[in-house]
């Protein structure tokens, strides 16, 4: 059990902001980490009627502890059915998933995601990352996608080093013309801001910023030119004390995903 008097850390705040993207009554495809916290938080607060789907095939588990992995028994705890992997992704294609949440190592101005390599040379990258996993599948198929990760100019480059998953590709109608399904990413969420995509160009645009972060700061944290919305930029609604209490006492009491990383 975590100390309720310590102020929210960025991961807890992130979980709350992600949870706000989840509408009640929807089917939510969740990747590992913070999106798990967000999904369970949403279910315990404003969205009790959501159904959570995981990549290993677990569907609609009876709520238990925080899964350690998308393969953990908590993802299929007394599930009515566990789908084989191919069928699980197919639910996105077939319109039975409303929204998916994915992480990224890099995201570019059109919401394309890289989880393959840092560096331009595939054979000698600076760092080899995980590869796609289900990242590409969800991005290619799901009606609405939300991308979640850290924000630095390197992590928000103009062009990702490798397109693991297509977002809005080169903007405009290019995603649709390339034959992909669904709307592409609707939001990118970092500890510093929430971004959407300008409807015509499909370029990343500031939607709300974390209190204390100005447009200029956000721009400095970004490797491409951010679009600015009309009018004043709203502040991102931070986690409420009630939600923080639920995260710390019910959702992730051991801080599996909501304590800041150690090595």
């Amino acid at each position, binding site marked *: 059990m975590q100390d309720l008097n310590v102020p929210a850390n960025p991961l807890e705040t992130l979980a709350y902001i992600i949870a706000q993207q989840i509408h009640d009554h929807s089917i939510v495809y969740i990747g*590992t*980490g913070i999106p798990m916290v967000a999904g369970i938080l949403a279910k315990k607060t404003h969205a009790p009627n959501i159904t959570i789907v995981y*990549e*290993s*095939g*677990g569907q609609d588990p*009876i709520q*238990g*502890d*925080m899964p*350690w*992995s*998308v*393969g*953990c*028994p*908590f993802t*299929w*705890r*007394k599930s009515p059915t*566990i789908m*084989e*992997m*191919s069928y699980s*992704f197919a639910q996105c*294609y077939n319109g039975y998933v409303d929204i998916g949440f994915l992480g990224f190592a890099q995201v570019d101005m059109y919401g394309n995601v890289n989880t*393959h390599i840092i560096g331009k040379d*595939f*054979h*000698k*990258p600076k*760092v*080899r*990352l*995980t*590869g*796609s*996993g*289900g*990242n*590409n*599948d969800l991005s*290619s*198929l799901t009606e609405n996608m939300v991308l979640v990760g850290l924000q630095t100019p390197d992590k928000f480059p103009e062009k990702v080093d*490798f*397109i*693991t*998953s*297509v977002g809005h*590709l080169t903007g405009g109608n290019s*995603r649709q013309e*390339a*034959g*992909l*399904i669904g709307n592409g990413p609707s939001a990118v969420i970092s500890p510093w801001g929430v971004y959407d995509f300008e409807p015509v160009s499909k370029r990343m645009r500031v939607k709300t910023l974390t209190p204390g972060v100005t447009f200029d700061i956000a721009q400095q944290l970004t490797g491409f030119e951010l679009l600015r919305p009309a009018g004043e930029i709203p502040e991102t609604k931070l986690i409420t004390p009630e939600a923080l209490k639920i995260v710390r006492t019910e959702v992730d009491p*051991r801080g*599996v*995903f909501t304590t800041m990383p*150690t*090595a």
Partner: protein
Amino acid sequence: MAKYLYNQEAVANLKLSDMSVLDRLVDFESARAAHLKKEHAKKDKRMSLAEAVSTFVQDGDVITDAGFSYVRTPHQAFNEVIRQGKKNLQMIGAPNTNQSFFISYGCVAYSHNSYSGAEMRGIDRSYDRMLKAGRVKILSEWSHGGVAQGFKAAQLGTPGVFSKQMLASDIVRYNPYLKVMQHPLRGDHDPVVFVPALYPDVAIIHCHAADKYGNAYIYGPAVNDLAVAAATRKLIITAEEIVPENDIRYNKKGSIIPFFYADAVVELPFGAVPGNMPGYYYWSRQWWEKLMRFGGASDENMKSFLDEWIMGTKDQFEFIDKLGGAKWIAEARRQTKAAEGDNEDIDFSYEEYTLKHDSGLYY
């Protein structure tokens, strides 16, 4: 000379000089011939793990990862493959998290890559180093769904399927097996990706129960294993327990692998240790953390860690003794049952392994 018309952009991007190394994975005729040649009658196929691995895992084979990362993965059989010093294997799976063990010992030389790493416990820094050192060559990049579709295509008896996955990403530019085509029934521009049926040479699938003929039962996520069992040329079933055929017929419902796919049946209790076997034992979280954090830090660390656990144990029982023996078994059983909702809820907190803190506990 390669047998097939591979995606040449991918061949160039991957810098593949000898394309024939790609052939086995999509060579339907040889897979079908292998399946036809197998014993098709019920025969007692039980043998020791050493014999099964020695007979059915051959140098150069395309081998599959199985289960899901650390769930129902045949870790103990994989250790035997390593101890027998198999060479030049290709590895495929969704995920293919466990290829790093093999690469570390020079068993796997080629990767059909989909995912390596341990989710929130970190990227696989060992894989990163070995890749850059040229100890493994990537033959193809995939999404999980793409691999899953390739195996399913084989199980469904189709030469291949169209997919809307991987389209327009760099994955198709680094996968010689994929081709972007136009949907044959549509007049509007509608690109699709052709995913061929995938036929590994050998798969090891760890099951909850099997009869001596190879009828095998899986509890919990089957992931891609039912498809892999139908596709692979050679199949080793390892099982927590050997049961009478009638136990499968009368009691086991859900995911069943039929006996005629199997070449070998190995009684192997605790065959998925240190991973999670649904219903039987939870994974050792500290073991995986130590692997990623201590082993991940340097090649030397990784070698000492793996030498201790893989080369330093002759079987699963010695492995479990190192994890904590009977106490580990009891704790791991309680944990997986609690996670599955079949034990009262317990406190899942534990002393996380970090470079600064090693409790020495594995449960």
